């Protein structure tokens, strides 16, 4: 009997789980269930090209046009999975029950909500789905004032896009610098300068105290630094939390994320999980990640294992972002007690390394694409590097990699 594999979730983790499950076991009946009405699309453009109007979500399909049909994978769109019965091996959905032999949960994350500015409120926006982006874009008019709460990647990308549309922008951030979770101070200052050049006003170390609606429909927001802002629209971009609601219906172990091991197995046999929804627990570590590459790679491993393989996923955090003419790439884990080394590549390009005991723990490149593939490998392989060589652009990073590679 053909193995029935159900994948829940239309983000990259779900898509690559479905593609890889089918590739490993071509006889399997693979079904991907997504509650969205669109065929799985890329979310990164939602805060960039989709807001700018240069692309539509449905033009950027993760599996390519007709990608699922070509590979014999069934899609069930507009369908929400409501509960799992692990004993009967059935997923109950808003469109009937689906039996499974292997189940992959790629339920992703939900946005953190500000209680005073709830999701769905008038002039209040959150940005996660294509529908969110369409609604948000419709309210961005030249000359209007947009308040963005949160200076993380989504808030900053949305700021850059909205600025290009002629919108006036204030960004409110609780931390004392932008991209505080992943960015060293120097790089954060460099990115902030670019935003300021484009007229963005930052209110750092500041939070929203209260907000109210004015008779003319605008929102009035009071902040902890004693200021008051009037805005036509607000975007709340304060991060996400794992969506483990479906997992909980099957009593799968969760702890700020669906707990998975390196093989993407949950606490219940035949149920795998991957992507934003999960927390990977291993000897001496417990880690959540929210980035595209992680979703793709962990999803692929979950899919292969759901189809009978027993592969292990080794995570290395990484992300990219586009803001104005800055192409930002981060790789690795920010660490404590590191030496900061800057490699200046050009007027606009630089890499900021965090090095500990000669090993690069974390690096952020700005307009440094040509070097970042080598940087990823230096970090992945834990190559011991010479700090002078890291700074010296006459010494290609590739050479450091080759010097470290065993002779072949």
């Amino acid at each position: 009997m053909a193995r029935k594999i159900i994948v829940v979730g239309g983000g990259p983790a779900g898509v690559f789980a479905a593609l890889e499950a089918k590739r490993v076991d071509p006889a399997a009946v693979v079904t991907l269930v997504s509650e969205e009405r669109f065929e799985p699309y890329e979310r990164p453009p939602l805060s960039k090209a989709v807001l700018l109007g240069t692309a539509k979500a449905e033009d950027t399909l993760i599996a390519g046009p007709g990608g699922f049909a070509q590979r014999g994978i069934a899609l069930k769109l507009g369908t929400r999975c409501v509960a799992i019965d692990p004993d009967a091996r059935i997923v109950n959905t808003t469109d009937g029950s689906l039996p499974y032999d292997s189940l992959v949960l790629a339920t992703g994350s939900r946005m953190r909500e500000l209680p005073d500015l709830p999701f769905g409120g008038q002039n209040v926006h959150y940005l996660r789905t294509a529908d969110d982006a369409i609604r948000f874009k419709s309210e961005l008019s030249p000359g209007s004032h947009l308040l963005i709460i949160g200076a993380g990647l989504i808030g900053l990308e949305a700021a850059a896009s909205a600025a290009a549309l002629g919108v006036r922008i204030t960004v409110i951030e609780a931390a004392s610098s932008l991209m505080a979770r992943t960015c060293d101070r120097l790089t954060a200052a460099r990115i902030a300068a670019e935003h300021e050049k484009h007229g963005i006003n930052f209110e750092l170390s500041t939070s929203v105290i209260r907000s109210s609606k004015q008779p003319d429909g605008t929102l009035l927001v009071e902040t902890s630094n004693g200021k008051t802002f009037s805005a036509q629209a607000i975007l709340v971009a304060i991060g996400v939390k794992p969506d483990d609601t479906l997992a909980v219906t099957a009593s799968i172990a969760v702890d700020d994320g669906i707990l998975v091991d390196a093989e993407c197995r949950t606490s219940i046999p035949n149920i795998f999980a991957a992507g934003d929804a999960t927390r990977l627990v291993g000897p001496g570590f417990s880690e959540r990640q929210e980035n595209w590459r992680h979703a793709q790679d962990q999803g692929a491993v979950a899919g292969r294992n759901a189809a009978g393989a027993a592969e292990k996923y080794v995570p290395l955090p990484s992300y990219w972002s586009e803001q104005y003419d800055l192409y930002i790439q981060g790789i690795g884990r920010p660490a404590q007690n590191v030496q900061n080394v800057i490699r200046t590549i050009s007027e606009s390009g630089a890499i900021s390394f965090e090095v500990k005991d000669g090993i690069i723990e974390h690096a952020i490149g700005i307009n440094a694409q040509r070097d970042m593939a080598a940087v990823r490998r230096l970090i992945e392989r834990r190559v011991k590097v010479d700090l002078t060589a890291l700074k010296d652009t006459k010494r290609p990073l590739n050479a450091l990699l080759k010097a470290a590679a065993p002779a072949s």
Partner: protein
Amino acid sequence: MTNKIKLCLIDEVLEGTAIRVDTEGRAFAVYNVAGQFFVTDDTCTHGPGSLSEGFIDGHIVECNFHNGQFDIRTGEVVAPPCIIPLKTYPAIVEDDAVFINID
């Protein structure tokens, strides 16, 4: 009708690297792997990346935007997020130059 076009001199492409050649309104990447030449479209099938600026490891090129990988001999996808294979062109080396046939 096929049309043979010259892309570059072999000396222009150092071993283990690639260059971008813009001609006939298209962009090609010409690679030199251990003295053997390969030609593909320059633009990644996934995003805006220019593959001649990618990371080359043997016959694998990694796009420097989102780290998808292709085999430059066949155009086959080696690593996602790329889904669509890359177009390749048999490289013809004559008179110290690299040519391809295009339609």
